[in-house]
């Protein structure tokens, strides 16, 4: 008897202790200690993250974790962002919602990325989860404003509705008006992806005025300037705001109204949007600039002089997204003004023109790496680079943890020496010991992969395009990068040998994507046979891979580990070793 009491007390104590452990990784470690800890932990796990929705089935998740309140799911592979994954590939959320509707009545948070969400799924969410609070649909598609109307109408405690970069079909329903007049709980609303027809401005104003806890508001593009000022005056407590279309010419009354509205917003820390902004209006935001930590100007066609002026008003900036209009001179100004900068993303204003339309080179990045001691995360599009610059950047900033460089023209060499960038990226991985994400570009041989395999021990995600000479390159990465989770490759001469030799490695990773490489269908079948816990999916719209000559290479290959076995929702253009040809060809 005393024994049982002791053990039940310690269960409660353990559960209480576990409640302080929030990180997924730590929770997983805790559950592996012993059987009783596994049991206790699984009953009190509240938050689940599934990086690949096909790695596990909803039934399995529910069986192990019966009391989940918050779930995050990701569907399509990353390269789907660049149209490399055909429509209809998969990533449907409905099976998950259906299962969870029954099992998790208290589910209150759903976060999805790159998934296909239908109106039916949204209606099911609205109906099934009484206390639903958070819906984040990042880069999702398949739903319309009908589904949003259902959410608005039923979710009385909704706090967060974030549709970032999703594709929403317009069903002509005034969905915003479906929030009842009694609804006041909105904290974060992001509808920047919606078109003008899909948002009724008066409904939006009424909503904003009755939600006193609103902290983050990202409006859609077509809201005119005077309306912007009105909204801001209704919500001076905002911390994050996405501003909208600026009118064509400066009108002093509109300007002062806007400037006044911004000056009321003492809590504002993050600004974005700025589509079609006219530089004359920029001073309207100067009153908030000194407190800004995040600024996204990557949709704004503002040129370098105005950008420099703006940036010089923002000494607290930690995160800047901008177009290459900022130029090297602007980045130098950034480097001298913004000593707290942690993240920089520079996008190309005209990616398809071989001639640069802005004077942005490797020098800008070098300047920032020198001037900003806290810089950790870089995404940089440019047209020329040198190994010397990369080495300098690596030496200046060994604290980099995300480095994504895109030299726009494939196979571009070092403009000073004509060499490949093996040495430059080698320096990056050698000096930046905490690097977890890396994207390569430019002319690269197998050597760079040797460096990566040797030094990039903490690397979790690697993106490779138009690089390497042979299977050795791939082999170096697969055999050397101990922490590798996601590897995505396109247009590289990597083939069967490296893949089959490193088959076991693939099970330690989340996924591998290879498109326009040199892998044969035979090798895919062999790999699939050898590794039953890998799903080896060939994406090929040309027809059955079997029907082509034996050594023909597959178009695209997506390999991921899974405990759920092969999926049942594969479209006709996805082929696995088990495909039944007769079933395929019948309509």
């Amino acid at each position: 008897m005393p024994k049982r009491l002791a053990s039940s007390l310690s269960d409660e104590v353990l559960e209480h202790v576990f409640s302080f452990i929030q990180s997924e990784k730590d929770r997983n470690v805790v559950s592996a200690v012993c059987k009783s800890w596994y049991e206790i932990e699984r009953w009190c796990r509240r938050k689940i993250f599934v990086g690949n929705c096909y790695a596990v089935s909803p039934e399995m998740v529910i069986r192990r974790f019966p009391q989940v309140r918050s779930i995050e799911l990701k569907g399509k592979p990353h390269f789907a962002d660049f149209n490399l994954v055909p429509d209809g590939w998969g990533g449907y959320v409905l099976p998950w919602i259906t299962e969870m509707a029954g099992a998790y009545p208290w589910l209150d948070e759903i976060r999805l990325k790159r998934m296909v969400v239908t109106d039916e799924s949204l209606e099911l969410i609205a109906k099934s989860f009484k206390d639903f609070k958070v819906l984040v649909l990042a880069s999702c598609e398949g739903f319309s404003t009908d589904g949003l109307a259902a959410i608005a109408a039923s979710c009385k405690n909704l706090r967060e509705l974030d549709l970032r970069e999703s594709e929403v079909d317009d069903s002509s329903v005034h969905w915003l008006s479906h929030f009842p007049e009694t609804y006041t709980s909105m904290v974060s609303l992001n509808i920047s992806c919606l078109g003008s027809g899909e948002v009724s401005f008066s409904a939006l104003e009424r909503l904003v005025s009755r939600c006193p806890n609103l902290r983050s508001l990202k409006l859609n593009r077509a809201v005119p300037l005077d309306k912007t000022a009105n909204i801001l005056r209704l919500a001076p407590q905002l911390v994050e705001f996405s501003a909208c279309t600026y009118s064509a010419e400066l009108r002093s009354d509109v300007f002062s109204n806007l400037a006044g509205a911004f000056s009321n917003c003492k809590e504002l820390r993050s600004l974005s949007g700025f589509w079609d902004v006219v530089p004359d209006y920029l001073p309207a935001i100067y009153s908030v600039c000194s407190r800004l930590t995040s600024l996204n100007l990557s949709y704004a066609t503002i040129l370098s002089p105005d950008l420099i002026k703006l940036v010089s008003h923002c000494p607290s900036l930690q995160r800047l997204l901008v177009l290459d209009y900022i130029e090297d001179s602007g980045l130098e100004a950034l480097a001298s003004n913004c000593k707290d900068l942690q993240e920089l993303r520079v996008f190309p204003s005209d990616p398809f023109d071989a001639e640069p339309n802005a004077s942005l080179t490797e020098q800008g990045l070098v300047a920032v790496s020198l001037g900003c001691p806290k810089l950790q995360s870089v995404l940089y599009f440019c047209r020329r680079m040198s190994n010397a610059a990369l080495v300098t950047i690596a030496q200046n900033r060994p604290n980099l943890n995300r480095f994504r460089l895109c030299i726009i023209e494939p196979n571009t060499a070092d403009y000073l020496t004509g060499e490949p960038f093996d040495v430059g990226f080698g320096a990056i991985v050698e000096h930046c010991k905490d690097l977890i994400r890396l994207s390569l570009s430019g002319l690269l041989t197998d050597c760079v992969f040797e460096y990566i395999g040797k030094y990039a021990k903490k690397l979790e995600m690697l993106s490779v395009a138009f690089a390497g000479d042979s299977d050795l390159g791939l082999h170096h990465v697969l055999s050397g990068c101990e922490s590798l989770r996601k590897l995505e490759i396109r247009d590289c001469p990597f083939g069967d040998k490296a893949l089959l030799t490193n088959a076991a490695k693939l099970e330690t990773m989340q996924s591998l994507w290879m498109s326009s490489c040199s892998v044969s269908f035979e090798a895919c079948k062999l790999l699939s046979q050898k590794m039953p816990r890998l799903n080896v999916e060939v994406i090929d719209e040309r027809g059955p891979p079997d029907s082509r000559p034996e050594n023909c290479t597959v178009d695209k290959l997506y390999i991921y580990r899974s405990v759920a076995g092969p999926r049942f929702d594969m479209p006709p253009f996805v082929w696995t070793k088990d495909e039944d040809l007769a079933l395929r060809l019948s309509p």
Partner: protein
Amino acid sequence: MEGGLVLLGGGANGGGSGGSSGFSTNESAMSEASSYPAETELELGLGLSIGGPTGKINKASGRILTAKDFPVPRRASMNGGTPPSVTVSGTKRAADQSVPHDSGSPTATSQVVGWPPIRSYRMNSLVNNNQAKAPRAEEEHKGINEEEEEDKAIKDGSKLKKPNENLGHIGFIKVNMDGIRIGRKVNLNAHSSYHSLASALDNMFLRSAGAEKQQLTMPSKLLDGSSEFVLTYEDKEGDWMLVGDVPWMMFLTSVRRLRIMKTSEANGLAPRFHERNRTQRSKLI
């Protein structure tokens, strides 16, 4: 199989097994299936077939095309493991390597699917920005008239691009078909004519994958009014029009999205020939 490691240690001796040979076999198979044999001959005649099967461009497979499909000799080493000494046009390479062919440097990047890696959300925003800008001074290329372009457009996408620099940005647009829940996206950059586009759509929607090859050479019924479906598009002003009335180039600059509509429902649309009934703004979706 583990013995493969020894080979790898010995140095780069080629890409995937059978990559090169497999590739050329594939190429000939694709050439047979091409519905544009004339263009194929043109391309081969100009010696542009290095590194990629050139016959694929007009093959109406709905397949997402990659750098391999375009006659720019990119990386031959992609499939053969040869060292990167093959010059690629538009590449800023060292002086010791010559540029053998001049299809125009701006083409290379705009023709590769998914490169540079910019999300479509951002890409659409760039399109809007660039359309608002004044056209840059590329006057020297504007002399090419439209007919010439349609003939040559397949093998030399640069000329496709120059008269309207926005063309390089159009890329993927949505296509929906009545009765089918899931829409698709089609890459307009990959097509140089209505025929090519309609064949691709036929393949995407009206046939299952694994289509018989002979159907690829038949002209699409979508354009001639003989099928129960008709191809329509929404233009920049939000009007729905029948596809095929305006020159291909003009179509490219104004199309926003496509819809394969049942012929019976298409009554309210602008008539096929000459007359435009712009007062009809029927919201068909």
